[in-house]
C-alpha cells in the first residue's frame, strides 16, 4: 500500500492540478452554456497568459504583477476575438464555430512562436517556501493556487447569483430568446462572458507557468484534459466543471503514484464510463439544445 506521506502530498498535488484545470475549463463551460460555442481558443489565452506572465515577471521581477498582466492579456484577447470573429458567426452551426475557434488557436500559436520563439522558457517560482502539512513538505505556492481557484469559484458564484448582469446571464443560459425579449442586450452579455472566460484562462496559464516551462504548444498539451473535464462535468455547467476538474486532478495525481503511464489514460476510462451511464455528463442537462 502507498504510505500516508506520499498519499497526502499526492492529494494536495492533485488539488492544485485540479485548480488549474478548473480555471481553464470554467471559461470553456461558461462560453458554451451561454453562446453554444465550443471555444477552443481558450487554450490560446492560456498560453498567452503564460507568456505575458513570463515577460512581465522577467522585466519587473514581480511574479504577481505578471500573473495579473497575463489575466488582462487573456481578457483583452478574448474580447477581441469575440468582437472581431464570433460576433459574425453566432448563428452558424456549432461545428463551424468550433472550426473557427481552432483556426484562432492555431493562428495564435503561430503569433506566439513569432514573438517569443520556439524554445521553452522558465518562469521563476515566486515563493519557494515549503510548509509541513500533516507530515510531508508541500510547496506553499501550490496551496496558494488552490486558494485562488477557490476564490475564483466563489467570485463566479457571487457574480452569477448576486449581480443583475450575472442573473441575466444565468437566464440567458436557460433561454436566450426570452432574455432578448426582456430588452436585455444579449450581445453585451456575450462580450462580458468571453472577457471573463479569456481572463480566467490567462490567469490559469500565468499561475501554472512557474510549475512547467512556457512553450508554444502548452495549450495543446492540456487540451485533452480540459475537454475530458468539460465532458465529464457536462457542457455548460459551472458546478459540474468544478467537481470534474478536481476529480480529474486527483485521478491524474494519484494515478501517477500507482502506475505512472496509466495516469494519462485513467481520466479517459472514467469519461467513457460516465458517458455510458449519462451521455450528457454529470451535470449537463438534456434540454441544452438549440
Amino acid at each position: 500500500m502507498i504510505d500516508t506521506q506520499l498519499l497526502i502530498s499526492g492529494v494536495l498535488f492533485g488539488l492544485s492540478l485540479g485548480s488549474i484545470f478548473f480555471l481553464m475549463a470554467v471559461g470553456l463551460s461558461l462560453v458554451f452554456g451561454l453562446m453554444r460555442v465550443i471555444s477552443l481558443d481558450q487554450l490560446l489565452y492560456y498560453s498567452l497568459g503564460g507568456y505575458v506572465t513570463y515577460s512581465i515577471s522577467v522585466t519587473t521581477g514581480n511574479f504577481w504583477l505578471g500573473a495579473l498582466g497575463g489575466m488582462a492579456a487573456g481578457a483583452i484577447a478574448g474580447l477581441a476575438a469575440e468582437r472581431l470573429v464570433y460576433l459574425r458567426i453566432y448563428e452558424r452551426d456549432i461545428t463551424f464555430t468550433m472550426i473557427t475557434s481552432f483556426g484562432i488557436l492555431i493562428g495564435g500559436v503561430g503569433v506566439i512562436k513569432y514573438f517569443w520563439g520556439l524554445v521553452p522558457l522558465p518562469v521563476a517560482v515566486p515563493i519557494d517556501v515549503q510548509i509541513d502539512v500533516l507530515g510531508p513538505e508541500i510547496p506553499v505556492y501550490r496551496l496558494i493556487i488552490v486558494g485562488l481557484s477557490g476564490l475564483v469559484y466563489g467570485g463566479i458564484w457571487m457574480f452569477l447569483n448576486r449581480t443583475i448582469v450575472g442573473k441575466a446571464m444565468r437566464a440567458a443560459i436557460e433561454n436566450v430568446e426570452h432574455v432578448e425579449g426582456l430588452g436585455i442586450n444579449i450581445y453585451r452579455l456575450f462580450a462580458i462572458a468571453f472577457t471573463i472566460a479569456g481572463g480566467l484562462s490567462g490567469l490559469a496559464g500565468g499561475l501554472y507557468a512557474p510549475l512547467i516551462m512556457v512553450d508554444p504548444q502548452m495549450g495543446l498539451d492540456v487540451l485533452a484534459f480540459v475537454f475530458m473535464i468539460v465532458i465529464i462535468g457536462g457542457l455548460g455547467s459551472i458546478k459540474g466543471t468544478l467537481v470534474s476538474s478536481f476529480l480529474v486532478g486527483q485521478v491524474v495525481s494519484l494515478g501517477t503514484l500507482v502506475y505512472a503511464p496509466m495516469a494519462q489514460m485513467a481520466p479517459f476510462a472514467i469519461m467513457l464510463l460516465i458517458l455510458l451511464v449519462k451521455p450528457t455528463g454529470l451535470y449537463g442537462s438534456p434540454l441544452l439544445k438549440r
Partner: protein
Amino acid sequence: MSVLRWWWGLLLAFAILALGRVFLPLPFANEIVLFSIYAMGCNFLLGRVGFISFGQPAYLAVGAYGTAFYLFYFGSNPYVGILCGIVAGIVISLAVGALFVRLRKDYFALVNLALAVIVYYLMQKVLAGITYGDNGLWFLTSIASTPVLDLSRPDQFFIFAFLVAFAIFAFYKYIDDSIFGACCLATKINEDKLTFLGYSNFSIRLVAFVIANPTTALAGAMYAVYLGFVSPEITSAARTPEPVIVTILGGVGTLYGPIVGSLVYIGMKDLISKFVGNWELIIGFGLVLIMLAGEKGIWGTIEPLLKKAFSCALRRPLPRTLGGRSDD
C-alpha cells in the same frame, strides 16, 4: 451512355490528378493522393452524417500502427500489412462506434479529440515497450518487393495509391447515390423525420462511422508503408485539425472537395514553409477568414459555376427529353 455519365466526373478528376504526376515532384503527388484518402473519411462524416470529428488522427494512427506492427514483428509483405491496418481500423471503429454515435454532435467532436490524445499517450508511453515511444518503429528495409506493384519504390507506390484513391472515391460516389447515402443525409438534416419513416438513426450513424473510419485507417496504413516508419507524432494534438481544415477548405460534403483541399493545403504548406517559418499562423488565420467568408470551401464555390458553364455548353443542343435529368 448512363454508365459513362456516372463515371465521367471521377475519370476527369483522376485524369487531372494523373497529369499532376507529370508536372509535380513525386513526393508531393504522393502526399496529395494519400491526404485526399485521409480527408475523405472526415468529409463523409462531416458532410453526409453531420458529425464533426477532431479525432481522425486517432484512426489514422491505429491504421498506421496496425501495419507497422505487422511489418516490424511478423512479416514483410506490404499488402498484408495494409490489410492488417484496415482490420485494426474496423476493430477500433466497432469498439468505440456504438458508444460514440449515441452522443450529441458537440460531445462527439470532443470525445474523438480525447481519443486522439489517448492513442498518442498509449503509443508514446504505455506501450513504449513495443512501439519504442517517440523514436517510432522503422521498417523501411524490411518491406519486401512484390512482383506486380513494388510498394517499396515511390513511383510504383504512386500508381497503387492512385488506384486505391480511385476505388475509394468511386465507392463514396456509389454511397452518395444509394438509399443509405440518402439516409445519412437525412439523419444530418432531420433525425426526427427519419425516425418517423421507420429508420433507426443509431444504426445508420453506426454504419457510417464504421465505413468512414476504416477509410482513415487505410490512409494511415498507406502512410506507414510509404514513409517506412511510424511514430506517435502522427496523432499529436497539433495535427488533429488537419483533416477538418482540408475538408472545409475543399468544401464540406462535396465529392471532389478532399482532392482540391489536399492540393491547396499541402501546396500552401510547402510554399509557405519555404518562405516563412511558421505556417501555422497563415493556416490558422486563413481558416478563420474562410469560415467568415462562408462555409462552402473552394470546390463548393467552384462546382456550381462549373456546372452552370458545362450545362450551357452541353445541354443546349440536346432535346429536352435527354437533358431533363440533372446529374451531379
